Structures are given as C-alpha cells and as structure tokens.
C-alpha cells in the first residue's frame, strides 16, 4: 500500500518537474500559474495590469492547450494526471481503465480502506510473470534513481514548507524502509503491531512508543462516521459566530456612545476644497471636443495677437482732435448755462405769488388748451372725460356749494354785510359749482348754444334776411375771437422754438389781415341788413311775450323756447340788461322748478364758460349776488334753520320740502333764487347738525344735564338702582347658576309615548311606560347627576364656571401625543421649559437648541473608527468626533492596501513583480 502511494507521489512530482523546468517560477507556484506564465511569453503586447485584474489568468480552449503541450486535466486527481503525463502509453493501460475507485472518480469508499485492499493486488502482480515485469524492472531501476532524486527534492520542499531540518524527514524514511524489509520477511503471517515493534527493541524512544501502542490497545479503536454536512456546517458556524461576535461586540461601546450622545459634532481640520467659484473655474480642463476647440481658439497665439492689435486700432479710433474736444466742451457749457438759466427762470416764476400774474397765466393756459381742443379731437375727448370726472366729484362732494366753514360763516353773518370781494368770492364758488355740475353737452358752451340757435331758427322759420344777419353776426364774432386769440403764441413745446415762432407770426399776420378784411365786409353787410331787420326784432320780442302768456297754460315743451330766447338775448345783448331779465323772470307765475334751474344753469354757463368774456363774468357775478341778497332778505337764515331741524337730517326731505313751499308761496323772488336757496338750506342743515352736536357735547354737558360730576350726588334713578341692586343678589345668582347648569347639562326629557299609542287596550294603560324607557330615563338622570358633581364649580355656591368647549382654541393644542412620547406626563414635563432666546440666557441657549448632528457643509463623514470606550460613561456634552487630517489618512490607506495586495495591487507593486 505504501508502495503505491509513493509511486503515485513520485509520478506526480515527475510531471511537475517536467512542466516546471521551462518556467522561471518557483516550485511552490500552482499548476494554474504555469499556463499563465507561458502565455505571458507569447502575449507580450498586453500590458500587465490587464492580466492582473483577471482572477484566474487567461482561459484558453482545451484544444489550444493541448497544442501548447499543456495539461488539460490539470485539476483532476493525481492518478489520472499521472497517466496523462506518461510519455509512452501502453496498450494495456489504455485498454484496462483504472478502476473508478482507484481513479477517485467514484468516491464511494474511503481512501484509507482502499489502501488496505491494494496490498494483495500488488502481490498478485508480482506473482504473474509477464513482459511487463521486465519493463517494470527496467523502469524501476530508472525510477529508483529518480526516486532518490525526487526524494531529495521532496525533502527540500518539506523543509521549505515546514522549516524543520532535513534529517527529521530523512529518519522517517529510513524507518519506513526497515519496516518494509521486515514486512517482506513475514509475508504470509498475520502481522500485529507488536511484531512490528520487535525489531525496534533497544532503539531510543522504543519504550515510549510501546507505551503508546499499549495504551491504544486498551481502548477499542473504532472510527466514528463523519458528521453529516449540515451538522458540520452548524459546528463551523458556531465557531465562526463566536469569533465574529467577539469582533463585533468590541464596537458596541463606540456605537452605543454615539447613539446616545445628544449631539455628534464632526470636525476636521482639513481644507474642504473649493470655496469660491473662481477656484472651481481655475481647475477647469477642457474635456469634450467642443471645449477643446474653444480652448484652442482662446489660446491661439495668432488670435491673441490679432485681438491685441485690433484693440489698439479701436483705441486709435478713439483719438479726437483737440479742436473737436474744445468745441464739444464749449457746446456742452453753453447748453448747461442755458439749462441753468431756464431753471432759474422757472424757479423765479414758481415763486411768484401775485394773484393777477397767476390769473393771467391761467387764462393763457386755458386759451392754449381751448386752441388745442379745437385742433385735436383726441385732446377734446380727454378733456371731456376729465370734465365728466370733475362733475361727478362735485356732485358727490358738493365742495363748492357753500359747504366750507368759511362760506358758512359768511352766510351766517349775512351776505349784505360783507364787502364786495367776499361776495364775489362766494359767487364765484357757486358758479364753479354750477359749472362743474353742469352736464357734459353744455360744456362747450358756444357750440351747444349755436346748435340750439340753429334749431331755434328751424323752429321759428325766420326769413332769409334774418338768417343772413345771424350768420353774419356769428361770422363776425368768430373772426373777432380769432383776432383776439391770434395774439396768443404758445410758450412751450415745439411752437416755442424761435424759428417756429417766427413762422407762426408771419402766418398769423396774414390771417389777421384776412380776418380784418372779412370783418369789414361783415360790418358792411350787417349795416345793410340791420336796417331791414329792426322790424324783425320787434316781432321776435312780441313773439316772446306771447309765449310768456301762453306759459301759464302750457307746460314743458312750450316753455323751452322761452328759456332759450331769454338765453339768447342775454348772450347777444349787453349784459347790463341782466337785471331786466330777472325782472322778466319775476313775471312768471307758474314756473316749474326744473326749468328755472335749467335757466340758471345756462345763465351761469354763459357767463362762465367762454374765456372771452371777462367783463361778462364780472357782471354775472353781480347778478348772482343780487340773487343771493334777495334770497337773504326773503327767507332769513332762521326759517331755513327751522326747516332743517324739522326736516331732520335727510337731504332729500329738505329739498322736497322747499320745493313744496316754493309752489305754495309763489313768490317770484324765491323762484329766482331757488337753487342757491336750496343749497343754503342743505348746508345749514349740516351745519345745524354739527352745531347741535357741539352744543350737546360741550356746552350742554357743562351747563345742563351732565354738569354734576360723578362724585356728587347721583341721580335719583341711579340711587334707586343702587339701593335695590343688592336686594336679592344671592337668590338671583342661584337662579342663574341653575340656568347655566341646565343649559350645559340639559335635564333628560321625561319619557313619554306618542299620544294615543297603545291606548286602545286598558292593559297597556295600566302598565304605564315600558320598562326600558323608564330605565333609560333613570340612567340619563344618573349620568347628569354625575356630570354635575364632576363640574368644577360643584363645590362653590358663588361661582359658575362655564364648561363649554372652546372649539377655536383647540387648534392650539395637540390632539395626540407626539411620536417618541408614551405618556402625557413626560411630554408635558418636557414641554414646560421654554427654549427660546427670550427666556434663557445666551450661554444656555445653544445647549437647549443644539441639533443632533453638527457638521460643516461639504464635510465627508468618515466611517467609524474603533476606540476603547468606558461603557458606564455618560456624557451630556456634544460628542466631538475629530476625523483625521489628510496626510495621516493616506498613510493608513497605504498600510491597508499592503495587507490586501492580492486583490488590488497598486501599479508600483505590479511592476516590481514583473522585474523579479
């Protein structure tokens, strides 16, 4: 048995030696490596790294390997290996395949047993004489030599591996040889260990050997069947678990401490890298094609040069001659001085406080505006809108309707007492009001009136001559107006420029000339016509008087012409006649207030609207004064005051009231002054309102009702109240309390059946209410009693504490306990302490509000490192984890890499291997 094993091992070695010889690797290298190394020679072009990365070296197909002379079945068992490795193959051996057991393919039997059975086989072999035997003997000689060689090598290998001197193994070998010899002697007998021991007698170590043998004999030697795989694995796991646990538990302390620490504070004294955008940009390297192209372009010396040159050219362009510069400076200086002068002028003008100046200025502006209106329809439209707005405002606020304090005061004193200026001012205000209040279509006074005129003309169907006269008049007026206006030159804008001004003047002069001629023409024709037309006028007057007469009977439309007539006349004739017209007005017996209002509007409108007629305005003001005066005389402030009081605060009432009175009295004076009267009344109603308030607030409180202060005798009623207030206070309170109790915990309803229910049998009636109802009622009662007892105010007679739930405040409370808390007590205890800066000193604040982890942005948290930790240590301070600085870290890395070099070999190491 031993023989065969030896043989096997020898064969193995031989094959190895064969293959190994050609390589430069040491004998310890695995068969796998051989192939690889060979390949290296062939494929020198490939770089080393690639090969290293592959775990098992290059894999080639088996055919290729055979060609290369490599062993295909490298990994199979030694027996097959040895056969494959044999240079000369015998037919027998080819025919007679090695038994499965032998080849190790079928591992049904243990190898140990196999050896036992092998022995007799050997013997048989020796007994059978054959050709092979010669061969064998021949071979054996050669093999013996080789064996010796191999033995030596083997010894050397063993020595290398174990580090034990060669002699130890040598001795063993000798022993084995001796044993073999003895075996040969006693071939057929049963050999025991004792027999084997006999030749060793007297040799050193014999006794100990014998002892051991004896000991072993005493114990029955049975080999146990190996454990099943699962069991074996279990055991292995157990052991490995033990080790792993030990390894892991050592981390427990660190992890626990980190977990329990209220705050982890990561620190590192290394530079965190890029801090600015510039720093990042400086490290930019072009990578993509486009970027590279761009970079190339940017750094192209030619381009750079060109750019520089170009820049210089550009600068050259900037060069200007001294003269130009001086010119420019001069120009600028001039402009500046002009500007300055203009500014100064504007300032001076702005400072002027003279009313007349401003009046003139205003008029000029108005004229300009009107001129623009005529020229520009857009502007006219805007103006109209503006006017409409103003009108609405005026109608809302009645600002100019004698509602101001000043106006009220003057009216209170009486207008006739005032001097002319104030009267004028008042009138002007009223006028302004009317003007503003007037409707839109009557804004452009001239146009509307002319329209009316024309319509009038149509209505009246005048003869040709009259119409001509009218047209002439109109034309004349217009030309006159144009003439007057012609002087005006715009002071601003494009037309203010000198050359434009000049041009304008020229044109104006021409126009002026023309106009004058036209006027003369008109005058001439007018004179002609007037002679004819005097009769016509008389006629019209008669007409008007006729209308007046009819006015008594007819209403509405018939009156319109009258008013218009009146209007027209006023406008056409001189305004000294105004008083006459008034008188005429006075003759109306049955005026409808609307019409009168209308008329008044118109008079004022006429007087106001046109910028032409200054004198007219003044006259008109006079007229209105008269009106006002009359009014003052006719209806004194007292009556109006009374009216206001009786009518109450409401505006409308007063108005209607006044209208009514007007109708009743039919006094002409009142009619004429009606609108203004109305305003006055309303104003006064306001005034009186405020007056009474004042009186109530201040004077009366002082004088009449509230004169006595709190500390003097209280009033009778007060006294009575006080006296009886404390009468039955307790009882009242009790009643109140009962009420609230009933409200908050209502008494249960008395059980009752639906009327008529079950009453058709007397049985049910006798029984009364069903049991469950009674029970329920009692239960409810009991519950109510409990609730009442539970109330906070149950113990106090003199206190009612409301127990209604405050729904609105519910949102300020938590509905359930927030996550980590399991008890209300703990939560509320934790909440009791305010952590804000208003309640804590600054030094305690940070500890109260520290987050769980503090680290700088951009800092990389390194994996945890092992350190010894005292398990009982408790620390409330923030745990500082100081991560190593960079250089230290790199050294550590190196050492780690050195350890695990077979997986990831750094470049340098690989090169080293190559060089050896």
């Amino acid at each position, binding site marked *: 048995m031993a023989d065969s094993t030896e043989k096997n091992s020898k064969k193995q070695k031989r094959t190895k030696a064969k293959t190994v010889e050609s390589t430069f690797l040491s004998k310890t290298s695995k068969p796998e490596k051989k192939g690889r190394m060979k390949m290296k020679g062939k494929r020198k072009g490939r770089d080393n790294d690639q090969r290293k990365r592959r775990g098992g070296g290059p894999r080639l197909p088996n055919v290729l390997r055979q060609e290369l002379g490599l062993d295909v079945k490298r990994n199979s068992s030694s027996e097959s290996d040895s056969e494959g490795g044999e240079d000369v193959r015998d037919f027998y051996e080819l025919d007679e395949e090695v038994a499965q057991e032998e080849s190790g393919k079928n591992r049904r039997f243990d190898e140990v047993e196999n050896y036992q059975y092998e022995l007799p086989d050997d013997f048989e072999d020796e007994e059978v004489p054959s050709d092979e035997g010669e061969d064998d003997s021949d071979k054996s000689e050669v093999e013996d030599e080789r064996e010796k060689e191999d033995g030596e090598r083997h010894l050397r290998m063993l020595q290398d591996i174990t580090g034990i001197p060669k002699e130890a193994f040598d001795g063993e070998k000798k022993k084995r040889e001796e044993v073999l010899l003895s075996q040969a002697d006693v071939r057929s007998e049963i050999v025991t260990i004792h027999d084997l021991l006999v030749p060793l007698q007297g040799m050193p170590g014999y006794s100990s050997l014998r002892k051991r043998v004896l000991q072993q004999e005493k114990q029955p030697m049975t080999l146990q069947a190996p454990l099943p795989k699962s069991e074996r694995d279990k055991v292995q796991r157990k052991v490995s678990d033990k080790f792993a646990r030990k390894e892991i538990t050592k981390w427990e302390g660190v992890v626990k401490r980190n977990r329990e620490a*209220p705050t982890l504070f990561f620190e590192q004294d290394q530079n965190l890298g890029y801090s600015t955008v510039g720093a990042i940009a400086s490290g930019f390297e072009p990578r993509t094609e486009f970027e590279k192209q761009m970079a190339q372009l940017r750094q192209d010396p030619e381009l750079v040069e060109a750019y520089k040159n170009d820049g210089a050219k550009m600068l050259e362009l900037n060069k200007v001659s001294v003269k130009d510069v001086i010119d420019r400076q001069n120009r600028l200086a001039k402009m500046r001085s002009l500007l300055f002068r203009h500014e100064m002028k504007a300032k001076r003008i702005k400072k002027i406080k003279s009313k007349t100046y401003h009046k003139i200025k205003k008029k000029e502006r108005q004229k300009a505006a009107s001129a623009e209106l005529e020229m520009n329809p857009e502007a006219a439209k805007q103006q109209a809108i503006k006017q409409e707005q103003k009108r609405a405002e005026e109608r809302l606020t009645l600002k100019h309707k004698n509602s101001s304090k000043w106006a009220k005061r003057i009216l209170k004193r009486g207008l006739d007492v005032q001097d002319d200026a104030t009267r004028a001012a008042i009138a002007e205000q009223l006028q302004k009001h009317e003007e503003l209040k007037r409707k839109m279509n009557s804004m452009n006074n001239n146009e509307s009136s002319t329209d009316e005129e024309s319509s009038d003309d149509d209505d009246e169907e005048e003869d040709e001559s009259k119409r001509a006269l009218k047209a002439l008049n109109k034309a004349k007026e217009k030309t006159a107006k144009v003439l007057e206006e012609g002087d005006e030159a715009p002071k601003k804008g494009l037309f203010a420029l000198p050359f434009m001004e000049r041009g304008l003047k020229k044109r104006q002069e021409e126009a002026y000339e023309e106009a004058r001629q036209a006027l003369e023409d008109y005058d001439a024709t007018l004179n002609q016509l007037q002679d004819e037309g005097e009769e016509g006028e008389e006629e019209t007057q008669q007409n008007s008087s006729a209308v007046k007469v009819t006015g008594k009977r007819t209403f509405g439309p018939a009156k319109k012409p009258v008013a218009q007539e009146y209007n027209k006349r006023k406008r056409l004739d001189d305004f000294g006649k105004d008083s006459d017209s008034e008188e005429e007005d006075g003759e109306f017996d049955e005026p409808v207030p609307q019409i009168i209002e209308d008329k008044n509007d118109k008079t004022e409108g006429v007087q106001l609207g046109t910028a032409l007629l200054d004198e007219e305005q003044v006259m008109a003001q006079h007229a209105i004064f008269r009106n006002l005066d009359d009014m003052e005389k006719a209806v004194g402030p007292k009556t109006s005051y009374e009216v206001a009081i009786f009518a109450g605060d409401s505006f409308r009432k007063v108005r209607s009231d006044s209208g009514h009175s007007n109708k009743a009295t039919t006094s002409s004076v009142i009619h004429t002054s009606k609108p203004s009267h109305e305003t006055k009344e309303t104003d006064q109603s306001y005034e009186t309102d405020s007056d009474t308030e*004042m009186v109530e*607030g*201040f004077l009366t*409180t*002082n004088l009449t009702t509230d004169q006595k*202060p*709190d*500390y003097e005798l209280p009033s009778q009623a007060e006294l009575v*109240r*006080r006296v009886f*207030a*404390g009468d039955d*206070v*307790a009882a*009242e*309170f009790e009643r109140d*309390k009962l009420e*609230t109790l009933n409200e908050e915990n209502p008494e249960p309803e008395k059980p009752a059946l639906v009327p008529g229910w079950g009453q058709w049998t007397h049985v049910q009636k006798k029984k009364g209410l069903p049991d469950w109802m009674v029970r329920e009622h009692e239960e409810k009662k009991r519950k109510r009693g409990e609730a009442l007892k539970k109330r906070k*105010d149950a113990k106090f007679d*003199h*206190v*009612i*504490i*409301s127990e*209604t*739930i*405050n729904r*609105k*405040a*519910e*949102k*300020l*409370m*938590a*509905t*359930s*306990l927030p996550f*980590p*808390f*399991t*008890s*209300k*007590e*703990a*939560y*509320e*205890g*934790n*909440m*009791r*302490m*305010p952590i804000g800066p208003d309640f*804590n*000193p600054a*030094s*305690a604040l940070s*500890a*109260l509000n520290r987050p769980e982890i503090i680290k700088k942005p951009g800092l990389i948290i390194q994996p945890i490192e092992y350190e010894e930790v005292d398990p009982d240590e408790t620390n*409330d301070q923030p745990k500082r984890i100081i991560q190593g600085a960079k250089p230290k870290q790199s050294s550590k890395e190196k050492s780690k890499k050195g350890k695990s070099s077979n997986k990831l070999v750094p470049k340098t190491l690989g090169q080293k291997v190559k060089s050896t």
Partner: protein
Amino acid sequence: MGEKEESNEPQSLNPASNQEEGILDKLEKKAKKYLRGNKTNLKNLRDKKLKGQLEVREKIYGNAAKVAARAEEWLKPSEEGLLEPENPLERTYRIQQSSILPEVDVLSVSKAFDMKLPDLGPYTIRYLSNGRYMLLGGQKGHLAMIDVLKMDCIKEFQVKERVRDVVFLQNDQLFAVAQKKFTYVYNRHGTEIHCLKENQHPLKLEYLEKHFLLVGTNNFSQLHYQDISTGQVVANYRTGLGPTSVMCSNPYNSIISLGHSGGKLTMWKPTSGKPLITMLCHHGPITAVAYHPSGNLVATAGMDKKVKIWDLRKFESIHSIPGHAQTLDFSQKGLLALANGSRVQVWRDKGDQDFGLYMTHSIPKGYQVGTVKFRPYEDVLGLGHSMGFSSILIPGSGEPNFDSWVANPYETSKQRSKKEVRALLDKLPPESIMLDPGSIGMVRERQRKEKLTKREIEQQMVEAVVEVKSNVEIKNKTKGRNKPSKRAKRKQEEVFNAKKPFLEKQRETKEGPPQKKRRVLLEVAEDLPKSLQRFAKKKPM
C-alpha cells in the same frame, strides 16, 4: 428705581463659608424658579431610549436654569425697598409723605407732585406699560399726555366732549379715548387718527398688549373687542347684566373681568359669548376691580362697604377690608391701593396672603379721587381726582429692575419702533386668550365623538392583532383537519377577522363615506338620445 428705606443690610457678620453656603442655597432657590415646575418623573417610563433622551434633556434644563439664576445677579441688581418699622409698636401707615420726602433722593422727590386742574373736571389717568408716559383725561374734554420721566407735557388739547376713559395703545404713539359717542384714537401730537364708530357710547377701555386688542364696554351693556392692528371687530358680546364701567384685564392670561351692579364679577374672553366664570362677590354693585400681576388674586370693591381679595385658584375670598372704594389698583410688587373720597390706602401682602395696611394718604378734603394707578417701574402712585392730579411716593411698589425686552422706560425711538415690529410679529391670536394659557401646546382631552386619525387606527389595529395572536387557541381537530397548514390558515383567518373593522374604518377616513358609483356613459351611448342613454349596455373594453 426702588428706594431702599430703613431696610436692613444683609448679614455681614457671618463667616465666609457660611456665606458661601448661603449663596449656593440662594442660587438653588433661584434656579428652581427658572426650572418652571418639577422635574418629570421618569421612573415609570418603560421606553429606555426615551428615558435616556429625557434624562439628558432634564440635565440641560437644569443647567440652563442654573445659568439663568447666575445671570439674575447681574440682570436684577437692585431690590425693592419697603418701609419697615424699627420697633414693633411703630406702624408704617403712620408715616406721611411729608416725612418720606426729606429722606429720599432728589430725583425721587421730583416724582411727588400735584397738578391743580380745577376747571375740566375729575381726571382719569393711565400710565404706559413702561412707566414713562402718562395720560390725563379730564371729564370735560381735557386730554394731556405727559412725559413723567422728563416732566414734560407732550401734548395737551381739548376734545370738547365728555371723556370717560383714556388708554395707551401699543406705545406712546397712539392712545384711545372713550368720548361721548365714540372711541377715538389720537396720536402723540393730538391728531385724530381714527374714530371707532363700532363701539358707541363707550364707558371704559382696556388694552391687551400682546393681542393688539382694544376692549371696551358701552352703554348698551356690550363688551367690544377690536383688533387695532387690523381694525377688525373681533367680538361684540351682550353681557346681559347692565352697563358697567368696572373693567380690568388679567395680566397673566388677558381675560377681561367686568364688575356688575348685581354684585357679580364676570370673566370674558373674545372667543365665547358667555362668561367663563361668574362670581358673586358682593351683595351690592361692584365699584372697582383690580388684578394682582400674578393673575391669581383679584380685588373687588362693592357698594356693600367691603373690599375683598379673592384667590382665583380657590375661588375664595382670602381677605376682606371694610370700607368703600371707588377705585383699586395693584402695583407690580403686589401692593393694593384703594381710594375713597379723599382718602387713599395702600395694603401690602405681609407673606402668605396676609394683607395689612401699609400706607395711607389723604388729599385735601373735598377732592374726590377718581382713579389710582401705580406707575410701573417706579415707587409712585398716581391719583386722578376731581381737582387734577397728584402723585405720591409708595416705597416698594414698583419693580426695581426693568427688562428692556419687556418694557424700557428709557427706550429710544429706534428701540421703540423695533419693539413695535417685534410685537406685531409676535402678536397672539384672540383664541389664545384662555383661563389657563399654559395648556397651549399640551395634549387636549379627546371629545367623545371625534374621528380617529389614520395613525391611531393603525395603532389600534396592531394592538388588536397582537392580542388575537397571543390569545387565540386553535382546537385540535380530527383527521386531516389538523394539519399545520390548516391550523396556520385558521389562525390567519382569525387575525384577519380582528383586523377587518379597523381596515374598514381606515377606508372610511381615507375616502369618506362610501359613495354611489357614478354611471359612466359610454361612447356608444353618446349617440343615443339622452333619455335612452341610460339603457346603453356596457361593453367590455
């Protein structure tokens, strides 16, 4: 600030070690105050992790309290002084103003003065919360704002109307005046800023600083809350107990108390139309109410010739002073001033809520004191009476240390404006006015008919499942029915049955009550007339 008068020096004779111990003790005592309640009891807590966390938290709280206690030494350097009798027979209330004045410093002397304003009727007064400015409101329309620190009249004007009450709003820039018909708001220059027409015929005004609410009672026995930052009327409730001009706000929780003619004291908040608490305090009309700064004590004066001090925690009268009082006021340090006619009394808590007469003062006979008000941060009592105004010195009434974050008498205009903005940002909603503001943020008690949240349902489900799993007993069955797979199946069924109701609940909360499925009109149906659309068959898509 506080005048130290006849107060004993701290014992300096003790040995140093003793002193140190004393200091430590004091520090501990102070720290306890800053701990704001007892430490939570963590022994019953099962969760170890939470326990650890809370322990750490408690420790941090303790440290913070200690730091605060230490800082107090610097932040509160002075103590209030009091009149203390030298021998047991001496009575502090015998000490007159005339004997106090020569003893105190010049600055304090200047604080005691009289203003004779005989024409415009009894005066009511108000101090700004930092004690710097004072408003004088004469009943006959005289209003004046005085800088009492610089003794400088800032604005004086006539409203020519009856003035019933004056009150400062957020700072000296605005003040509200209850006039004959409406409440008006004026600014510091006497310009009328607003006329609050919502509250007509106001009787008494009160301002809640943290909520920006102007509270007024009126002749129609209404209580009116108006937000002065937005102008909204927050609430307007009929008290149903008659018009009253007895009103006071609780400085602790901003609850408004009204005194009524029936002897009742009612407490109101803007979010409920019924009084929170109604107390029967007197057997006669209540004439005055005042709150202790702690908010626990309230003093009421009634026509039944009694002044009572109530403890609101027990709803019990802890002290009763015989006599009428037209007006009452508590000082910052808890002195109670009451005035009747021309006599003024000041009562002091001698410890354990035992009130004793501390000082008396009488103004010339015939003068009737209308209002008494302690000046904040000063030992001064202001008296508004029928002949003007006078201020007297009451040692120990004011808080000697002011917190410039709360109220700063020396505040600059910049500080003032900053504070105003801050106050506006920190403005509390009217709902936060409640009897116990400490309950804000706490867990509220669940009402009966309240829907559970999803999480709660889940939790309940888990509990139920655990219970079922632990308790369920599966009977051994015969033959093939007792296989482990069948047993497992049965167990699972049980678990599912336990889960079922909760799952349904969850679905309900998620989707609301189950709705009817909507009939989806098919495209085919669209061609049909509308009346026939409902008969169109659904085709499987």
